[in-house]
């Protein structure tokens, strides 16, 4: 669905609530992993990237440790390439460290069908053999088509399939906010 043809139905989460959710997820990641040892963050393009950077900054604030952070582009691993009319643009994967033996926290903005995460898992495993892969997301909107679940969730938001959840980060968009979009 093309976002330009949609209208904003309502703001689901404002900037302050987003900030609090990021702080909580950062604490949960540290708690589950008992600290920062062997921990790395990898954001899925596009909006998993600013979220991963925010989490890294928050974790540095809490523990004083700067986690290695990378960017994963999953385009070449998508399962719908033979059905889309035009090839999506491929960007670089930028992970300047070896993920073998690491506890990778995969970060994305929205968890929906689970197909993006499936592609991301395949892409990661082609890059090395992590000790563990965990999943952190801002919004879980349901409608899973694959047996995938998140370890860290900002907020669960049941939605209809006609709606679009649009997570905005001020690094890319105008401001921090989670919007619910609907076809105009």
């Amino acid at each position, binding site marked *: 669905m093309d976002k330009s043809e949609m209208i904003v139905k309502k703001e689901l989460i404002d900037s302050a609530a987003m900030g609090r959710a990021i702080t909580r997820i950062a604490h949960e990641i540290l708690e589950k992993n008992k600290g920062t040892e062997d921990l790395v963050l990898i954001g899925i393009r596009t909006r998993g990237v600013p979220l991963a950077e925010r989490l890294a900054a928050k974790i540095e604030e809490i523990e004083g440790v700067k986690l290695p952070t990378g960017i994963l582009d999953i385009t070449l691993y998508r399962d719908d390439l033979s059905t889309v009319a035009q090839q999506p643009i491929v960007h670089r994967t930028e992970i300047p460290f070896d993920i073998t033996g690491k506890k990778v926290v995969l970060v994305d903005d929205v968890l929906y069908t689970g197909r993006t995460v499936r592609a991301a898992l395949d892409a990661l495993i082609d*890059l090395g053999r992590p000790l563990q892969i965990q999943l952190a997301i801002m919004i879980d909107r349901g409608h899973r088509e694959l047996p995938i679940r998140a370890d860290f969730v900002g907020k669960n938001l049941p939605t209809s399939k006609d709606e679009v959840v649009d997570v905005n980060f001020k690094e890319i968009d105008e401001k921090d906010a989670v919007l619910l979009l609907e076809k105009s």
Partner: protein
Amino acid sequence: MSLKRKDFLGLYDVSKEEINEILDTAVAMKDILTRTVKKVPTLRGKTVINLFYEPSTRTKFSFNLAAKRLSADVMSISKSSSSIAKGESLLDTAKTMEVMGADVVVIRHSAPGAAKFLAENISASVLNAGDGAHAHPTQALLDIYSIKEKLGKIAGLKVLIVGDIAHSRVARSNIWGLNKLGAEVAVAGPQTLIPREIEKMGVKVYTDLDQALENVDVVNILRIQMERQESGLFPSIREYREIYGMNAERLDRIGKKAMIMHPGPMNRGIEIESSVADSSQSVITEQVKNGVAIRMALLYLLAGREIDNEDLN
């Protein structure tokens, strides 16, 4: 925005935006070539056929490897070892490949326009891997990619192509592509090996190499084909080497920042001295690596496209 075409025949009819999209895609593709697992599942289930009517080592191998890195099924057919030797027409051979499920046909042929002819008559995507003296777009793209990778830009650069311009599809394709991206292109070579109206393509012409080398950023040296000397287009190999050969002294004169390219295969000691080919300014081996990345980018951009039979009209 994406490459909106069934076929890729040459750089003469593609836009600047399309060229840039191919170059950008190739950056991500090149990353894959440096990983431990040098393969992605992108073109699983797609079939690529390499139809080579002319001898080729590096282009054929490069296309083969590019298709395999993307997980496509790839078959290579060459002239001597197939029904082509029994006199089957180009179109019949290609139609046979198509019926067997080819999604992309890569073609190298000695006749200019062979790729276009095929593109108009089959519904699979056609990728031109060199048609006579007409075009060799993937070589030009990998040259342009290599320049951009090393010098960071194309616009405003002075690129000199040296040698047999008249018989070179590499030169023509480079001129089309580089001009579109805003480079200043010049050619240098013996008068007999420069096509008469080449200025109309928007290039400067030099017959004096030393004059042409002033202030250049890139020197792309073409292979001199020995049979041209036999047909009298230049007097002797020795004289060619003296007047148009890239040697250490000339390399010294163009300065450390200028880069040296050659599409291969090289005649070491004729158009290019070994010390130049192996110098730190030479990107000749990197060009080969970039060729795989460029071909991966093109296969990705073409093969993912839905085959729309209306395009045939």
